[in-house]
């Protein structure tokens, strides 16, 4: 199956959990944002209970969990925002 590269960015609590600002992922074509979240849950025990992803941004725009990623995308999971 062909593969693509995606940049995954970590912010706030997710940066603390991942211990990194970002990571490069190699994914199978057709992978969705939600599927990346499920991989993260499998990697970090503290995320195990978070069955649903938080809000999602692809290339700095809000997207839905079923959004299909494409080569070179910048993906970020957006924990509940708390500006102001």
């Amino acid at each position, binding site marked *: 199956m062909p593969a693509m590269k995606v940049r995954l960015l970590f912010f*706030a609590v997710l940066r603390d959990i991942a211990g990194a600002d970002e990571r490069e992922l190699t994914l199978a074509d057709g992978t969705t944002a939600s599927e990346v979240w499920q991989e993260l849950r499998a990697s970090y025990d503290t995320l195990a209970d978070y069955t649903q992803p938080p809000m999602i941004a692809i290339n700095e725009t809000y997207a839905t969990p079923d959004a299909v990623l494409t080569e070179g995308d910048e993906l970020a999971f957006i924990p509940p925002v708390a500006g102001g």
Partner: protein
Amino acid sequence: MSYLTDAPIDAQALVRRVIRRSDGAYVLFEGVVRNHHDGKAVESIFYDAYRPMAEKEMEKIVREVEAQFPDTAVAVVHRLGQLVVGDSSIAIAAASPHRAEAFAACRTIIDRVKETVPIWKKERGPDGEEWLGWQGRSGRGGVDG
């Protein structure tokens, strides 16, 4: 013009950017770090952001509010980094020929910022530190908005 800053906010400079000779009023809103939250003492707050996306979302809000209140001029800036009690985290200025629009525009902006702009805060106090809005979210499922 950036909507984010790492330096203390100059609120009067924000007012000077919006006020025109045709305006009869301006409203200046500042959000400040308070010393408590949910019954716990707070000493400081660290603000984090997905900067390029936060700039875009701020721009979207400003454009929407300007469309909603055509005679009103608005400006907003959010501070990031480590802030202590009493520091302003956000300032919003809205100037209009009449006060009602200035109040409404200002209120709309702060409400929208809290909904969509990717900015987060980690509160620090004598009991430790915590990213707001994350703990206990798992059971609810779905998206918080």
